């Protein structure tokens, strides 16, 4: 069903003979070519190209601290891009992912502040709310059979309005109150928003979580039954159901995974900035989807990987910060961003096409 899932047979024989000698269709293609055909490799090369480009044009990037900053920027996109990618492999979109992050942060912040509770109470309730939003998305999807684009567009607008209105109702302002002096804050900050020292460079903990989550997602996709189900429901829902895949469960749980990601990033934002503004998060959903698509996940579902979006998010973070490190005219910022992303995606596409054609 998906090429990314197929195990690569070990290469024991010498490279296959050229097309002059035999019919090329039946021969084993060389390892390098087969590697290139994998979507992750395309995005890896694209990311490497962008990285090399900025390494040359923007001297500050060569510094360790700058690299840590770029990785941090990538990680806050990347942590959300992972569940969004899994959902996309499962054949669905979530347009509410960007504002759901803020919903989660607002819930935790307002609940702990207004009731003067230990912040962990807010954190846990926020997790339940986020999973609930994900469940609602998935449940509406399987119950109505409407496209996820429509359903999550609805929840996107609802959450956007609810974020603003409830915050205004509860706090009287459009941003939440500072919770940094409350019990449990420092503890939660250690988990969600601390940093540690690696050879004199401050690395943010989100980078570690990002890689841990990516490893778990890769393992789930490639080695578990649940991973098979994700590919199956994204490929063809009806045949998946026919062979006994619990389609509804898989879809709903994928939406809930996005909810989990939104909770995590929401908590990161809350504990690194102490307050949350209710109007934030709009537009982020497209960045998450972009990172997943650049990372080789098909918009139509059924194919993709968890490691691809890691590079996709890195590419996004690299371009976003690289333009600033390079000191280019800021008026062109958005245009640069678009051109670089398009260019990187084209490299990605070209590599995988060139590799599969032969």
């Amino acid at each position, binding site marked *: 069903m998906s090429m990314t899932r197929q195990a690569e047979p070990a290469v024991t024989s010498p490279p296959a003979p050229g097309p002059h000698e035999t019919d090329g269709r039946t021969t084993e293609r060389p390892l390098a070519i087969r590697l290139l055909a994998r979507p992750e490799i395309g995005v890896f090369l694209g990311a490497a190209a962008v990285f090399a480009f900025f390494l040359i044009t923007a001297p500050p990037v060569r510094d360790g601290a700058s690299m840590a900053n770029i990785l941090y920027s990538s990680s*806050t996109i990347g942590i959300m891009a992972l569940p969004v990618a899994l959902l996309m492999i499962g054949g669905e979109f979530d347009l509410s992912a960007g504002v759901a992050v803020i919903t989660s942060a607002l819930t935790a912040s307002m609940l702990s502040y207004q009731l003067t509770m230990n912040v962990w109470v807010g954190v846990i309730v926020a997790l339940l709310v986020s999973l609930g939003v994900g469940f609602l998305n998935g449940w509406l999807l399987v119950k109505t059979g409407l496209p996820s684009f429509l359903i999550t567009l609805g929840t996107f607008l609802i959450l956007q309005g609810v974020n603003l209105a409830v915050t205004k109702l509860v706090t009287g302002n459009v941003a939440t109150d*500072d919770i*940094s002096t409350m*019990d449990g804050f420092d503890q939660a900050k250690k988990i969600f928003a601390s940093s540690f020292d690696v050879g004199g460079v401050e690395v943010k903990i989100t980078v570690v979580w990002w890689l841990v989550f990516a490893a778990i997602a890769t393992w789930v996709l490639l080695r578990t039954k649940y991973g098979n189900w994700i590919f199956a429901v994204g490929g063809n829902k009806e045949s998946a159901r026919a062979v006994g895949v619990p389609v509804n469960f898989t879809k709903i749980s994928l939406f809930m995974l996005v909810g989990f990601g939104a909770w995590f990033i929401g908590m990161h934002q809350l504990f690194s900035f102490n307050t949350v503004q209710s*109007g934030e998060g709009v537009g982020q959903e497209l960045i998450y989807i972009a990172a997943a698509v650049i990372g080789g996940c098909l918009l139509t579902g059924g194919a993709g990987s968890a490691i691809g979006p890691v590079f996709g998010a890195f590419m996004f973070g690299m371009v976003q910060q690289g333009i600033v*490190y390079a000191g280019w005219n800021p008026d062109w910022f958005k245009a640069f961003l678009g051109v670089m992303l398009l260019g990187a995606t084209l490299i990605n596409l070209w590599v995988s096409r060139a590799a599969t054609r032969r």
Partner: protein
Amino acid sequence: MSRTSLPRPRRVLPVVAVAAATALTLAGCSSSSGGKKSADSAADASVGKASTPRMTIAMVTHAPSGDTFWDTIRKGAEAAAAKDNVKLIYSNDETAADQANLVQNAIDQKVDGIAVTLAKPDAMKAVVAKAEQAGIPVVGFNAGLGEWKKQGLLSFFGQDEAVSGQALGTKLNSTGVKHTLCVIQAQGDVNLEQRCAGVKKTFSGKTDILYVNGTDMPSVKSTISAKLTQDKSIDEVVTLGAPFALTAVQSLSDAGSKAKVATFDLNASLISAIEKGTIQFAVDQQPYLQGYLAVDSLWLYKTNGNYSGGGEAPVLTGPAFVDKANVDAVAEFAAKGTR
């Protein structure tokens, strides 16, 4: 008691037990510091109310939803409305054409007065003229210092963005900084661009502009750090909103920069940052005052024919600087979100 009602208590009991247990658990989780309990202070002072007949006033702005600055303007307008026995209809849209439609909507509702911002004066011209033709008094506030008189508005309350930018630039000259970074959180926003342009105009050193993605705080933080690493000569960061100033302080420590932070606009956390000295100063154009005066002036015009400035001069609401010297006087009000 009928049979059917018998099983009920059994079902209710566990629910009550669970609820009680939850309540107890939650009670055990109370925070001993911070939170609403410690912030609850004296409630808002109760004000008298005018005995004039009920009237309706529409306030139409170009504000984005959920912006702290505009929320303060709205609070000022609501306070004046409550005092003056006015029904306030507040509406906002960032798009010029849609804002004009909202003014038309107010005309159609036959309101008694309209307070409007002229961020894109040309787009508003026709509809403002229509309101005046319909005999509805119109006042301007916040944006449109150069235009309000031409369009025949009664009064204008505010501080042009460019003027407050220039005031900040002048203030920076006195602190002796050489290289300023002006951080814009929404690329292409007229008001924000005007503020930075104002700073650039009067500041004697070099002024650079940086665009950040204001809807994503982590990326704001890393983009400002990136810029500070790229150009080590930056010794002042100017942000255009209080939340961004607080984020910039984190960026400084990430980038190991010694730059200072100054900002436009206030909020409660910013006040404590000024007290602590992590933020140098804030320039405040007193948004509450703008909203309050705009509504109050329409009420005065309707009830007594007064109009501030006599249709000739604008009423300036700023720039007011808040720094360590006067922060205490403002702190109490900023905590409530009204200053």
